[in-house]
């Protein structure tokens, strides 16, 4: 029994493996459902007519032609051939689709006519997402999405047996952290200059290379790169029974998988499969029977979630539209009622979708990164390795203010803005939560910050009556531009993280780890010049979060520019010691500064 199972778990062994056996059905099944949907939609009238019995079809309909010319059997035959070809193609594509996980990369080969080979380097993985669509869950399958930066660059392993997918995810993350740590070990770890600076931010005149101060370098989050395959030997309960179908994942060269499992255990395994399926739907989305499941630090409150959805932008707008329609209908324009119904229906649909998605939300931290789970029937759970979060935002719309609710969002390299509803949801880290919930989530997202400092900053940002000295404030003349929020427009920098806050209708506190910011901008137009003000923008990777400060004193803006631009280099160096410049380039640079003057400056 253990033999095939070991073969199934050791997916990260550098060998080529196939996908779950149900893959052609799951992939093709979706296409077949779509085709059936189109046919039904087209034949709807005909079916209605068939039952009501008014056979006056317009001529030229293909079905008409078939019926009239007695081609029914031929048509059915052609349909059968088409379906057979489809099944054949999907099966063939399953047969040629193989993946492997090596010490450097995850590789996927697919395609029959157009062969595609996709390789995701382990040190470039931005996150790993396990998606379990309802349809796939019925078959005990799940999709492993390896998130890589870039448009449409993700590597999807669809579909894998859901009982091995957790192990595979952990293996890949462990290998990836091993690769990262290996890189980090190549040169000495140097800590950046202590950039701590709160309200009285001073410009950083020189970057000292002292070892003192806080360092963003965390403990290397892996056990041992030498033995990366020390898998847990067996998993409890359900996995034993699952051995019977583990043959679906077999090493391609040696096909000995689970095919020769003892017959006596077949019935038992069948029962096991059944209980497995039930279990999968009963258990929470992100529970994994093997490693002690990390406890979610936040519990989603159904009432609060419903309230937050009722008070969110789209629902408010929709409600206003519906009210306007009812008013219109009551004043004699009865045709508006016809429009109200679908509007209410779609509003309800949106509400239910968002509610069910966020209801079983969970977030937890582990040494391999932050883990965020969503979804009721179709579930997804994503793990983001440390240092992959580019910006974090705590935001509060005006309507949530009386209740003290906040939302947490983030920018990562893997998800680009406005791709689809899933992409939107994945940048939402905490759909709604109290101040205390936010305080629990932030340590997972900003592990490099000192707990006390981070708590103080977040508390000052979120609680009106709290001590506000953590943040700088815009000068009072900024009230001409920001009449309501100038007092709460400011920044602070601590532990290599810049925290910016601003906003009236949406109060925002944005945290940007300096090691991952892209560039810094300060700007001044004529209006701000008259008021001795400027604006600052810490550019981060594209996403819902922007690090902008609309008003700031001119001199403070210059200070911020100096501190952040120096910090961006110092903290990035501390995180990537392997790429630190060595003495040779140091000397070269001095020489080049002169050449630059001759080369480009000479012409001016």
């Amino acid at each position, binding site marked *: 029994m253990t033999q095939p199972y070991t073969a199934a778990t050791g997916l990260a062994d550098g060998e080529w493996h196939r996908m779950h056996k149900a893959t052609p059905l799951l992939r093709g099944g979706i296409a077949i459902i779509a085709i059936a949907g189109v046919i039904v939609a087209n034949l709807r009238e005909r079916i209605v007519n068939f039952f009501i019995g008014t056979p006056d079809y317009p001529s030229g309909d293909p079905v008409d032609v078939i019926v009239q010319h007695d081609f029914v059997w031929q048509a059915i035959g052609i349909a059968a051939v088409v379906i057979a070809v489809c099944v054949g193609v999907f099966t063939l594509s399953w047969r040629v689709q193989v993946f492997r996980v090596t010490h450097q990369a995850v590789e996927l080969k697919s395609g029959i006519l157009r062969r595609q080979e996709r390789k995701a380097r382990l040190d470039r993985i931005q996150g790993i997402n396990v998606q379990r669509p309802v349809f796939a869950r019925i078959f005990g399958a799940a999709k492993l999405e390896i998130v890589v930066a870039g448009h449409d660059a993700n590597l999807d392993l669809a579909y894998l047996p859901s009982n091995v997918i957790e192990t595979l995810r952990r293996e890949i993350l462990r290998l990836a952290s091993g690769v990262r740590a290996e890189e980090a070990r190549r040169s000495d770890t140097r800590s950046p200059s202590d950039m701590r600076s709160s309200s009285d931010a001073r410009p950083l005149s020189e970057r000292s290379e002292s070892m003192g101060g806080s360092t963003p370098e965390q403990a290397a989050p892996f056990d041992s790169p030498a033995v990366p395959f020390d898998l847990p030997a067996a998993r409890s309960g359900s996995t034993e029974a699952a051995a019977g179908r583990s043959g679906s994942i077999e090493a391609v060269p040696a096909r000995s998988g689970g095919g020769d499992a003892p017959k006596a255990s077949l019935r038992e395994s069948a029962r096991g499969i059944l209980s497995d399926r039930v279990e999968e739907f009963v258990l929470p989305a992100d529970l994994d029977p093997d490693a002690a499941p990390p406890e979610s630090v936040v519990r989603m409150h159904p009432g609060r979630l419903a309230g937050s959805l009722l008070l969110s932008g789209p629902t408010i707008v929709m409600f206003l539209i519906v009210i306007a329609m009812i008013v219109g209908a009551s004043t004699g324009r009865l045709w508006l009622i016809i429009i109200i119904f679908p509007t209410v229906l779609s509003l309800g649909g949106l509400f239910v979708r968002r509610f069910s998605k966020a209801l079983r939300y969970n977030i937890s931290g582990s040494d391999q990164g932050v883990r965020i789970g969503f979804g009721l029937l179709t579930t997804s759970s994503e793990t983001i390795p440390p240092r992959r979060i580019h910006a974090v935002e705590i935001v509060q719309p005006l309507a949530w203010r009386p209740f003290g609710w906040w939302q947490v969002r983030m920018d990562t390299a893997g998800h680009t803005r406005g791709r689809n509803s899933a992409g939107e949801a994945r940048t939402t880290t905490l759909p709604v939560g109290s101040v205390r919930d936010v305080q629990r989530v932030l340590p997972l997202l900003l592990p490099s910050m000192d707990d006390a400092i981070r708590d103080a900053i977040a508390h000052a940002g979120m609680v009106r009556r709290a001590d506000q000295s953590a943040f700088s404030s815009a000068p009072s003349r900024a009230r001409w531009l920001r009449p309501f929020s100038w007092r709460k427009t400011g920044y602070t920098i601590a532990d290599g993280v810049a925290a910016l806050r601003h906003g009236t209708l949406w109060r925002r506190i944005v945290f940007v780890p300096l090691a991952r910011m892209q560039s810094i901008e300060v700007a*001044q*137009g004529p209006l701000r010049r008259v008021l001795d003000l400027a604006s600052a923008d810490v550019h981060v990777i594209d996403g819902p979060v922007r690090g902008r400060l609309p008003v700031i004193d001119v001199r403070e803006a210059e200070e911020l520019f100096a501190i952040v631009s120096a910090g961006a280099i110092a903290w990035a160096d501390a995180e990537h010691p392997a790429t630190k410049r060595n003495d040779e380039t140091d000397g070269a640079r001095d020489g080049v500064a002169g050449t630059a*003057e001759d080369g480009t*400056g000479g012409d001016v």
Partner: protein
Amino acid sequence: MSQRLDVAGPDGTMQWHRVSPKYVVVVIVSSLISTLIAAAIAVFAWLVLAWWWAWIALIVIVAIGIAQLIIAPRRARAIGYVLRDDDLLMRRGIMFQRFVAVPYGRMQLLDIERGPVDRMLGLAELRFVTAAASSRVSVPGLVEADAAWLRDRLVELAESRRTGL
């Protein structure tokens, strides 16, 4: 009384590299073209569509065009860049000032672009692309040889300080 934004270096001064003086021509030509197009639309509206108020728009357009021509040399001079130890500093604009600092390690890609007027004058524009779309850093009006040299130099610097994503 109003204070201009100015990013000073560590020692209080900054040696900005200015772009080629020939770049003024590019600025003048582009502002002339945009003025001519806008003026043509206004004339069309005035004479053909007989919108009487279009001549006010025409006057405004011409006035803006003349103002642009007058400040063109200053606009060209306002563009500057500095190669600091670990990052590239860029400035632009007089009315709307903008300073950007991009660490070398964050550069993803460098582009050299040459428009038709640029080509006639032997100039090129160097664009820097980071992972953030809002960075928008570019140095126009470089002599072609300098642009190529600067690109190679920046690639080299970016290589030695690569931080990845």
